[in-house]
């Protein structure tokens, strides 16, 4: 059976992202005849000689009418080797909101650049957001390579500039792959191109099929937010008491010592149950039900963790917020925080810094945080939460900020994560940039 890869795309509006996504769907035969017919008709209506593959991923009518972008669209395609869930994020307006949403679940991101323009300011910003969200693998698709006459030197120059930027953001060189493509003509998307004999690497699809990405590569310690307590109270199961949830990170085995937080109660795992029978072991991504050796008072919202390396339980912490609401954040704001399966009242006590996305720099003590802005804040919660640093667990180090009055989602929160700031970068042009990480990009972990 195939495995599943979740990926996101990012790119500026004219980089040909819709065409590339359309090309992937088209060349993997994921577009069915009736959908394709509609694209052929619409292309002909617009006076085009060849079908415009970008129409395969065209937006909703309500978006076109209202001139708004309803963030991320999801696309599905599959080969014999893998199934793919692709979060297609619009590159123009609201790009932070969209990129953050798509990147939050992505194991890999494809960044597009136009070969004629190279690495531009927006490429750098997108990469910074992808790094902030901890997307483990990047692909730089150097698109429209046909429009620079398949020139190897141009490709090498762009690759070098991007590698320097990605390295400065914390990526190791083997986590970044560069591929020269023409989405319009199909070069190196699914089939190897005869026009780029100097390129010996994989096509985009070959790379997506083979890139070694574990589901949650940096999730190591066991974390299990309790979603629901299963108590059948039936004649067959009079005393059954199971804690249902999805393993957020790590693995758990029968006999493991665990701690239940925030209360700090200890016990051992007696059984890992599922409808299909008990398991000896469960890993990140699996929905299971845990039965414990002791009769404890555990309810939805509690976190079951490895006893040896528990997260810190705290009601005050630093975090990075990606602000997603039109209503700006000001210090002292009262909000709700949803972490795992628990929602608590909270106050954003301090706005420490705002990320200046133009300069990839940090601005201290801003007065507010507006839509699509990213900032460092201090948070105080009404009840203590068991928190991991975002970079040790993308699940238990993440939280939502919710408006208590209307229930809307205000922000994506990353526990402890610093801003993706680059020191000494003041230019958005291409060029060797090997600036080291700013100090505050290092993880401020609440740690065990």
């Amino acid at each position, binding site marked *: 059976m195939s495995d599943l890869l979740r990926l996101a795309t990012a790119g500026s509006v004219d980089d040909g992202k819709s065409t590339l996504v359309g090309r992937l769907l088209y060349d993997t035969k994921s577009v*069915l005849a009736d959908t394709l017919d509609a694209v052929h008709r619409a292309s002909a209506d617009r006076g085009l000689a060849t079908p415009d593959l970008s129409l395969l991923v065209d937006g909703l009518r309500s978006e076109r009418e209202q001139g708004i972008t309803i963030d991320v669209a999801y696309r599905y395609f599959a080969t014999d080797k893998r199934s793919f869930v692709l979060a297609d994020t619009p590159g123009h307006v609201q790009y932070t909101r969209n990129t953050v949403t798509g990147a939050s679940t992505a194991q890999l991101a494809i960044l597009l650049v136009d070969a004629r323009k190279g690495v531009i300011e927006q490429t750098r910003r997108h990469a910074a957001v992808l790094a902030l969200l901890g997307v483990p693998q990047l692909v730089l698709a150097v698109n429209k390579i046909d429009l620079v006459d398949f020139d190897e030197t141009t490709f090498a120059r762009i690759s070098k500039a991007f590698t320097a930027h990605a390295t400065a953001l914390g990526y190791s060189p083997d986590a970044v792959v560069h591929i020269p493509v023409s989405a319009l003509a199909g070069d190196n998307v699914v089939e190897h191109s005869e026009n780029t004999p100097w390129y010996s690497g994989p096509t985009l699809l070959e790379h997506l099929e083979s890139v070694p990405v574990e589901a949650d590569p940096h999730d190591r310690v066991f974390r299990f937010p309790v979603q629901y307590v299963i108590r059948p109270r039936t004649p067959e199961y009079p005393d059954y008491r199971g804690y249902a949830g999805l393993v957020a990170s790590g693995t758990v085995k029968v006999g493991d010592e665990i701690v239940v937080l925030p209360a700090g109660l200890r016990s051992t795992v007696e059984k890992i149950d599922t409808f299909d029978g008990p398991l000896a072991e469960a890993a990140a991504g699996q929905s299971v039900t845990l039965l414990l050796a002791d009769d404890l008072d555990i309810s939805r919202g509690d976190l079951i963790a490895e006893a040896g390396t528990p997260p810190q339980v705290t009601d005050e912490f630093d975090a990075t917020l990606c602000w997603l609401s039109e209503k700006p954040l000001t210090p002292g704001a009262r909000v709700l925080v949803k972490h795992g*399966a628990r929602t608590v009242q909270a106050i954003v006590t301090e706005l420490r810094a705002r990320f200046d996305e133009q300069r990839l720099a940090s601005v201290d003590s801003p007065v507010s945080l507006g839509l699509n802005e990213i900032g460092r804040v201090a948070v105080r919660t009404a009840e203590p939460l068991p928190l991991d640093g975002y970079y040790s667990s993308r699940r238990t180090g993440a939280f939502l900020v919710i408006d208590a009055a209307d229930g809307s989602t205000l922000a994506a929160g990353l526990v402890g994560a610093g801003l993706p700031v680059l020191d000494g970068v003041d230019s958005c042009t291409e060029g060797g940039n090997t600036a080291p990480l700013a100090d505050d990009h290092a993880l401020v972990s609440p740690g065990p």
Partner: protein
Amino acid sequence: MNEDLLAGSSVGTAPTPQTTLDRLESEAIHIFREVAGEFDRPVILFSGGKDSTLLVHLAIKAFWPAPVPFPLLHVDTGHNFDEVIEFRDKVVAQHGLRLEVAKVQDWIDDGRLRERPDGTRNPLQTVPLLDSITSHKYDAVFGGGRRDEERARAKERIFSLRNAFGQWEPRRQRPELWNLYNGRHRAGEHVRVFPLSNWTELDVWNYIEREGIELPSIYYSHQRDVYLRDGMWLTEGPWGGPRADETVLTKTIRYRTVGDGSCTGAVESEASDIREVIAEVAASRLTERGATRADDRLSEAAMEDRKREGYF
């Protein structure tokens, strides 16, 4: 530390590799449990079709060995296939579930709805659905919708907020981050929940095979008297047909979707068991909605319009 983890060098040991179907199943179970934990009165829309049968199967798995903590709701157009209604009632009895039925006919009889000139009742489901949601105070409504079905659904959320009129307002839809779902809503509003969002039609069939899930017999090939209308094979029924100019033929067919009989077309098929259906779906060159749902063909944006009105 950041560099280290972005490199993704160290990998935890996983006991058994999780396949695509394992991951989709775990995701759906997680969604069911979130709703059970956060909402007061959830309900599962259940028609007896394959997607809603799959929903019920996943709900049973999510709460086992306890019973499913929600009832089922069927909006019955009165134009159903007999095999599907029998199957619906069998599933309910077999698993000890509770079923509410909202009959479109009742709404027509008391004047709240009027029969359409073309006889199709699919668009008439919206009012009984919304009335039932209001009268039962349902706050979360599970549907079997998938994002791969149709372009208008590609941007649908897993938790889709609906206002007091059941309408989907683009501006109020929330970004969905990680697997943290925000189900907060005002009194009178509800959330449509789609646990199968990330499944494709082929995933659904592969999972039905893996789990040995029983489906209504009309999903498999059989002989039926049908007539051709708008390029689809429709069956005789109380919804009006065939007309004088439409010839009834006996064909070997099966259904890829199951809905109101007036607009659900059959496809010619010899696929008589699950393996043959999977082979056919894998090779199929038409989307299941394009092949068999007349109501989606009304306009390019047909599905989008109906979604805004409060249909799924």
